Structure formats: C-alpha cells, structure tokens
C-alpha cells in the first residue's frame, strides 16, 4: 500500500473527485496560485485550471454563500476555509443557508457542499487562531461533521463527503498535514457515520478523534498498557452522525469511558457522548464518564500556557485512572 501524507491524501481525494465529476470545484483563499496556505491544493490549479480552482478575496460569508448557491443549482463545491477559525464570520451561511435549505424548501433543493480546512490549535497562534469548533457545527441539524485522524480516512471520507448530497463540515488539522500513513491502492471511499476501533482493549474505552487521537490519546494508551491498563480506543471519524453502536458495544465490554477532545468542555461533543452512553448503557457503567478537553479558557499564546490548556497524555492517564479507580 502506498504511503502518503495527510496533505497528499486530501489532495488526491479532491483531484480524483474532480476527475470523476466536473461539477466539483474548489474555492477559497490562496487555494489556486498559492497552492493553498498549507499546500493542500498543491498542483490543482495547474492541472484543472482557473475554472475549477478559485482564489477568493477575504470574504468568507460571501464565498461560503456562493458555495451554497452553486450547490442549490447542482454544482458540488468544495469551500476551503484557510482555517476553521475564519468560518465564524460565515457561521450564519452555514447554520442557516446550508443546514436548513433542504428542510425549509420541503426537499425542493439540496446543498451538496463540503466546507473544509484545518481546525484546532497549532502552535502559539493564540485565542482567535486556535479554536476547535466541532461542537457548534454538530449542534446544528442538517449538517454532517467529519474529522479524520489519518491519511487513509482523510482521503476516503473526503471523497464520500464530496459525493454526499448534504452540507458536510470537514475538519482537518494543520499540524497533521505532514503526517504520513498507508492508504489503499486506487479508488476507495469510507462511509460517513462509521467509526473504527483503532486499538483493542478491555479495561476502558477511550473515544477520541482527529489530532488529539494521534498525538495524545494513543500515546496515553501505550503508557497505560505499560501499567497493565488496556484501553480500547475508538475513533468515531464522523462526529455527526456518530457511530453510537460501536461506542456502546465497547463500553458494554469495558464498563468505563473516557472522552478526549480538543474542544472546550461546556456543551462540547464529549458531553453528548457522555450523555448518550450513560443513558444507553447505564447499567454497564462502573464509573461516571470522564472527559479530557481543552481548559475552559481562550487559548493563550505562551507555550507553557498553551500546553497546560490542551489535552495531554498525563491528563488522559489521570482520567483513565479515575474511571478505573486506580488513582
């Protein structure tokens, strides 16, 4: 199996879908001539030309709306936000126009648009530029939210998202773009709403996704294994729809759950997972669900404060020990 970077995987997905369907185009700031602020669209302008790859002015609400309008009449836009932080100026376009159009029009129109770009913190970008915003999108009915954690899933899920007839929020991570991983030969897709058990275990279930899964959760699982605690780690891959059965099944086995996410705690995605699991497999739970999230503060610039604010291996280990009563 070929090994590619996360960046290349996304690039391949867009390239293949553009070849497959000429209704697909890419639009965003610096995606064309600059080849993408993070080079995700490298070479696409050269290959597909200015009719398929569009550089925009700084006008997120405007070009997000162009994506929705174009999708309503049959195109399949990929709208890149340079980072998801900048989507907040387009939040109304996404939460109202994209999310509600199909329902509000009684099925007259659908909005097959993908909004994608990197989310979460990188390094020292401070409060406005480090936001993990999945919760405020997953909260809105009509949207699907996808957050891949590796190149294979990134490619397979992005291809599926582009083919989906609904608005899909596709959140990547700029610090993962260089991560390399194997992907299947040739054409493949991965369905939305299907999670993956990325690590088998029996003592505790840990649900985690995107960057923190790779950089924090799996590292913590290894450390825990050394102490004889075998964590089963689930990557839901899609936040909405969530693969509830996979999580329930694991918790029925381990009787314990820790959710590790980069977002803020209050009304975060982890709160929903905690509630659903407690509600649906209450009798199997030997301990209340623990959550590891970003601290409930705007992320500071200083390195030490940034590190202290984000999920860490130590925090995950502490949470696991709490639910396993080892502390």
């Amino acid at each position, binding site marked *: 199996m070929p090994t590619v970077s996360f960046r290349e995987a996304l690039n391949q997905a867009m390239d293949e879908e553009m070849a497959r369907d000429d209704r697909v185009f890419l639009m965003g700031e610096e995606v064309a001539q600059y080849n993408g602020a993070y080079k995700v669209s490298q070479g696409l302008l050269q290959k597909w030309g200015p009719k398929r790859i569009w550089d925009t002015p700084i006008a997120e609400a405007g070009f997000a709306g162009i994506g929705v309008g174009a999708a309503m009449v049959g195109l399949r836009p990929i709208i890149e936000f340079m980072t998801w932080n900048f989507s907040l100026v387009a939040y109304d376009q996404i939460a109202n*126009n994209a999310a509600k159009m199909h329902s509000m029009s009684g099925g007259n129109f659908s909005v097959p648009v993908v909004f994608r770009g990197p989310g979460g913190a990188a390094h020292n970008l401070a409060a406005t530029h480090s936001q993990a915003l999945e919760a405020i999108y997953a909260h809105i009915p*009509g949207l699907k939210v996808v957050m891949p954690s590796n190149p294979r899933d990134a490619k397979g899920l992005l291809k599926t998202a582009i083919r989906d007839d609904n608005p899909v929020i596709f959140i990547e991570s700029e610090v993962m773009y260089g991560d390399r991983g194997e992907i299947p030969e040739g054409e493949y897709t991965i369905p939305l709403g299907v999670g993956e058990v990325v690590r088998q275990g029996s003592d505790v279930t840990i649900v985690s996704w995107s960057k923190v899964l790779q950089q924090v959760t799996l590292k913590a699982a290894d450390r825990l294994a050394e102490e004889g605690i075998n964590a089963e780690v689930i990557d839901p891959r899609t936040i909405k729809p969530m693969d509830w059965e996979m999580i329930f099944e694991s918790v029925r086995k381990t009787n314990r759950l820790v959710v590790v996410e980069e977002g803020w705690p209050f009304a975060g995605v982890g709160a929903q997972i905690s509630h659903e699991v407690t509600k649906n497999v209450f009798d199997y739970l030997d301990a209340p669900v623990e959550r590891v999230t970003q601290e409930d503060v705007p992320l500071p610039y200083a390195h030490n404060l940034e590190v202290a604010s984000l999920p860490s291996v130590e925090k995950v280990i502490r949470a696991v020990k709490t639910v396993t009563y080892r502390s």
Partner: protein
Amino acid sequence: MSQSAALMKPESKQSRTLGLSKDTLLGWYNGMLMVRRFEEKAAQLYGMGKIGGFCHLYNGQEAVSTGAIAAIKADDYIITAYRDHGLAIERGLDPRACMAELLGKHTGVTKGKGGSMHFFDKSKNFLGGHAIVGAHIPLAAGIAFAIKYRDQKNVCLCFMGDGATNIGSFHEALNLSALWQLPVVYIIENNRYSMGTSVQRSSAVEDLSKKALAYDMKSAVVDGMDVFEVYRSVKEAVDRARTTSEPTLLDIQTYRYRGHSMSDPIAGHYRTKEEVDEEKRHDPVMMLAEVLKSEKVATEEYFEVAEKRVKKVIEEAVTFAEQSPEPPLDELYKDVYAE
C-alpha cells in the same frame, strides 16, 4: 442619482406599449392584479387567524415583480427575501400551493415547512424565500457562478430590500460578482423603509445606486411604480448579463402599502397615513390599467372580466388550501438530510 442612472430615465410617456404585444400587456395586468388580490386575501386570512407567523405582504410593489420577471426566461433564476409572495405568484408558482403553504398545509410549495417567508419551487427556478436579511445575496452570486461555470446563457435576478444594502453580505456578494463578472442582476426593491427605519436613517447614501460605485458596477435608479420602466431597465440589465455576464445593481423605487408585516400598523411613527394615501395615487395596477385603456389595449369590460377571473382563482386557492391536509407527523424527520 448616479451617472449611469441618468441613462435609464423613461423616454416620453407617448406609446408606452411600443413593441409589446397585447397578450404581453394583458398578461402583465393579470399578473399584477393576481398578486394584489392574493395578498389582500392573505391579509384577510391572517386576520382570521388562519395564517400564522410573520407575513410580509407585497401590496404596492407589484410593478417590480411583473416588470422584472417579464424581462427573464423560464430557465433563468430568481431569488429573493421573505417578502416573496408577489414574485412567486408572478413567476407562476401555483396560487393554490402558495395559499396552502401560508396555511401550513402538506400541499404547500414546501409541504408547509417554510411558510410565508420561505417559498421555493425548483420547477420554476424559484430559489426562495429567505428570511435572514441579506444572507441570500451571496447565494445569488453562487447561482450566477454556476450559470457561468456551466456556460449557460442564463441570468439570476436577486431581489432585496433597501435595508439589506447595509449588511456585510451585500458588500461581499457585490464585490465578488463584479470581480468575477457573474451574470446576476441585483434589484433593490426600495420601498424607502426597513421596518420603521427610513433609508436616510440607515444608509450613508440616500441614492442607493451609488453603492455600485464601490464595485465599478453598472447601476440605475428606476421608477418602480411604472411596470414599463421596470421592464425596460431590468431587460437592459438582463440582456447585458446574458451576453457579457456583467452584473448590474438596480435601485427600483417602490412603496409598500401595508405595514412591514401583518403584525405592524400600516402607518406609524415612521410614516403618516397621508404619505401612504399620497403614494397610492400612483398605484401601479391602476396606472397600468390607465395606459391599457388610453392606448386602447383593453376596455372597461375587460377589466371587469379580469377581476372576476382573478377572484375565482383566489377563491379556488383558498378552498384548496383549507381542504388540504396538514403535513403528516412523519414529515418531521423528513427532508432534514437528503438521501
């Protein structure tokens, strides 16, 4: 008034109907009358509590919908804000389905899901019906983008209120449309007020066509009570968009007879009853009837028959709507996601 606006002042009032067939002219009259009567009926039903929510009527603005839509083809596109009944009816959405929508029935244009502010009909390229002020303007740019992307020879008409020109999405959409030369005609239905706020109190420029200067976009100021002027100005812009895909901003000056919505008084602190009565003296439906009579296109008898015919259509629409079923409860989770 902006430079380019001058170009579009009406020529002599002689033979307004030049080059327009009798069928066309009578079609305009019937369309405007239909819209007027539809809205009067909607007002009545709202008063009776049969229509709920926000209901923004079109009375007084009929020359805009009729004149503008007369300038486009069936495969062109239309998008507007929540004051959408007039444009929908004129575009040919079934009055029965429109009335049923207002009553929240399953036979409505959106199965009773959108209501008064959110009319849609894909078969008519009628893309709504949008209730967040200004938020549909970028959608219009997106529709025009798709037209150009597919090398279609179509245009998109985007209607908005005067108040919508003060919000950010107007600026972003117009800049993008001009920068990329998208075939869209932005039509400000300038009825002088956004709710109770006059243009003078909401826009730094009273001549809204001046806003086009920030995008080097062609613009014009148009008498929106005169269906002939609306038709000619929109036609000029549409033809330009169709051939060169150049966008235009039209400040079409009209007037709303009713309150902002059914929950607002017709006159209030922001305008006097006298002002409203004065405006009604240039009633667009009446003025068109005058022209048709003076130019011998139609007789008194014709208007009486037309009145009856329209009345009948509206009555049938009401009966249809009242007899239609509510949406079944299993509709609640339908249309949330497309399959």
